[in-house]
């Protein structure tokens, strides 16, 4: 992206606002998808995932919620990378790729744990797993 100096940037020394303005604030241009859209989506997704983790009774669904939270984090990662002034080569995407890989491994481990728990409790209802109750 070329850097342009606009009038709406009060403080030229601040790179971020300049970037911001550059991207979504041309005259006559419809506002395009800004960073906030990504972040709000990410937050929403995170919240939904958190809700799922906290609320659902089935251990597998809890893991699903954890995955959603993961993806929300990835999303915010990508968004932040996209709206950087000098987007380095693939930094965000590489980061996200690693994160997804780890999420996958973690999901596998988690599901293995769920299976082990199931063997013990004969159920996947997290409400029943209160052995560590103090």
């Amino acid at each position: 992206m070329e850097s342009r100096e606009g009038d709406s940037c009060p403080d030229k020394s601040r790179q971020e606002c300049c970037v911001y303005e550059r991207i979504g604030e041309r005259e006559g241009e419809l506002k395009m998808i800004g960073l906030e859209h990504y972040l709000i989506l990410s937050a929403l997704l995170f919240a939904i995932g958190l809700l799922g983790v906290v609320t659902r009774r089935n251990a597998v669904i809890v893991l699903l919620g954890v995955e959603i939270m993961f993806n929300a984090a990835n999303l915010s990662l990508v968004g932040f990378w996209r709206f950087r002034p000098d987007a380095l080569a693939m930094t965000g995407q590489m980061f996200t790729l690693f994160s997804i890989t780890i999420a996958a491994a973690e999901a596998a481990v988690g599901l293995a744990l769920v299976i082990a728990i199931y063997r013990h409790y004969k159920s996947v209802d997290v409400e029943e797993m209160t052995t560590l109750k103090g």
Partner: protein
Amino acid sequence: MRAIDYIWLIPLFPLVAAGLQAFLKRPQKRVSMFLSIAAMTAALVVSLWAFKDTLGGGHHDEPAKPNGKEMPAGSHAAEVRNGGAKLKPAPEYEELAKKSEHVTYRATHNFPWITMGAHDLKLGFVNDPMTAIMLVMVTFVGLMIFIFSTGYMGEDENATRFFCFLSLFAASMLGLVVSNNLLMLFMCWELVGLCSYLLIGFWYFKPSAAEAMKKAFITTRIGDIGFFIGILWLYAKSGTLLFYDNGAGILEDANVAKLAAENMSFFGVYMSVSSAIAICLFIGAMGKSAQFPLHVWLPDAMEGPTPVSALIHAATMVAAGVFMVGRMYPIFDASIVDGQLVHAMTQAHPHPTPALTFVMWVGAITAVFAATIGVAQNDVKRVLAYSTCSQLGFMMMGLGAVGFVAGMFHLITHAFFKALLFLGSGAVIHGCHHEQDMARMGGLKKLMPITFVVYLIGMLALVGAPLTSGFFSKDEILLAAFHTNRIVFAMGVFGAFLTAFYMTRQMYMVFAGEYRGGDLHGHDAHAHEKHGAQAGTPVPPDDGHGEHDKRDDHGHSHGGMPHEVPKHMWMPLAALAVFALLLGFLGTPFIGGNLWHHYLAPESAAHDVNWMVMGIATGAGLIGFLLSRAIYGKRAVLADGSDPLQSKLGGVWTLLNNKWYVDEIYGATVVRVNWICAALFRGVDASIDWTLHAISWVTIGISSIWRWVGDEFLINGGVDTVSEGVRGTGSGFSSVQSGKVQNYLRIVGWGAVGLVLVVLFLTREHWEHWLSK
């Protein structure tokens, strides 16, 4: 080598014997007997040595040495009687002293016992004629009695204990006699009282003996109160209790003069302090020597075995009172005349001091009183007991009538013939298989001839038949009384009459006629009981009846008839009889000018021979003998077993037989007062008890309240509440850890939200400008 240096051995030998005997076992009777007799023989030997020392007499001009130990070796040194006195002796004394060159021998050996700072409490031993003759008498008579006891008590199962007590008694009595300190005398006095207690109640399982032993001890103790007051008073006045101490002793002129010079009112009578102290001391002698009114224990003391009665209640212990009066005589007879110290006994025409008057009257009353009771007694030992009481009265009467030599002479002779009589009665009792009631005796003259002869000798001596020892001694006493107080003299004559009367009665009842007693077929001890109680004659308990049943049979194969006692029992009797006969010649004025007087107290005034008094005394005795023979000669006991005199005297007889009801009077007065006081104090004790219980109950109540409030409620409750609170809080908090991961996560989520809000709040200036856009 002087005996005084070894005189402490005399009481020591029997004391050691007693100590050894205490550890013997009951079957070791022969060992015990041997120890007693050996100790007594050794004591006798040393006593004879001491006696020999005193025979030489003292020397007038020997200067007094500071203490007895520095006497030059080989001399019979003695302190002059007036050593250290500042007062000039009375003129008559000087005359008498010129007459007799002899001063009595006196050696002392004093030693400090307890040192209290600068002041010493000294004890000591003394050897003078009075001591020496008493030593010889006690050891010799004691030895005879010990030998007799081997036969008499030989079969008693407790013979070992008997000889142990006998030895202890001998040690105490000998200690009393040699002591030079009033405190040591008192200690030995109490010890003889203790031994008397132990020996009277030797058969303690008999209730009558148990009563008698207590009665003896308590009655003499009552006398000892007066004695002790006298001792304390004397010590307070004199600062020492030694008798003879180179002029500083309490019996020496310096101190006696000081006591006699001070006058006071003693129970309303105006007299010198020396007399008042003497009366206090005499009260002790009244208890110990059974003078009226403290005589009540002596007849009951016959509960003890006969050797005990012979030794203690005839010869020695009861003589201790007389001996003590004799020992303290310088205090009794001291008075101040024209500013000078005068001893009444040195005067040719003696005037007794108030103390001596008191002694004389008490003695005279006792002599007559006891003799009247003796007339109406049926127990052979009781008659002798009252006779002893009466004779002690005579001795006191003699001493009180300023007849020091007479009284002491009678003491010695009486010891011999009374011991003889008691042992004779013991032989009689033993021979009659422990029968003591004279009504059931009789005819023993043929059956026990040796006993009869010696008993007769004793009886003659007691009665004062001419030329026996008792004759001379009693005559001296009556002579002294004649010169002092005619009424007392009359009482003494009456006493002599009664003495002859009851002794003759006893001789007839026991030895004359036919044998009345026992069961002629077989050894039936229980037959006595069947005779029942006769009017006015209480059946006396047999001498050791309970004991008798336990003993093994002594193998009498001749039915129940009395028999003569074995040789080792009548030999001592014979020895005593010899002395009873011959001892009198020491005190007669016809031979050698009254050796006894010369030996014992040469400075005392001797009365000239008075044939009238001698005649009256002998006449009284003769009348008594004849009267008794008239009543009892034909038949000593009437057909119904009662006394021939009883019907003649009637009520008087009952009075005499019941001892003038003195015991009953005491029981109703003194003993009752004692009971009331005891009940009163029991009540006090109970109320103290109740108070203590109440206090303890209140204390327990308070403590339990405090326990409930303080301990339970406050402390336990408080701690419990706090701990419960903590637990509750803890469990409340632990409920957070539900084990449900989702809950944890929820909380984490809320925490994260909170954190973000906090961060936003804290960094609001960075984004606040964006809000306005």
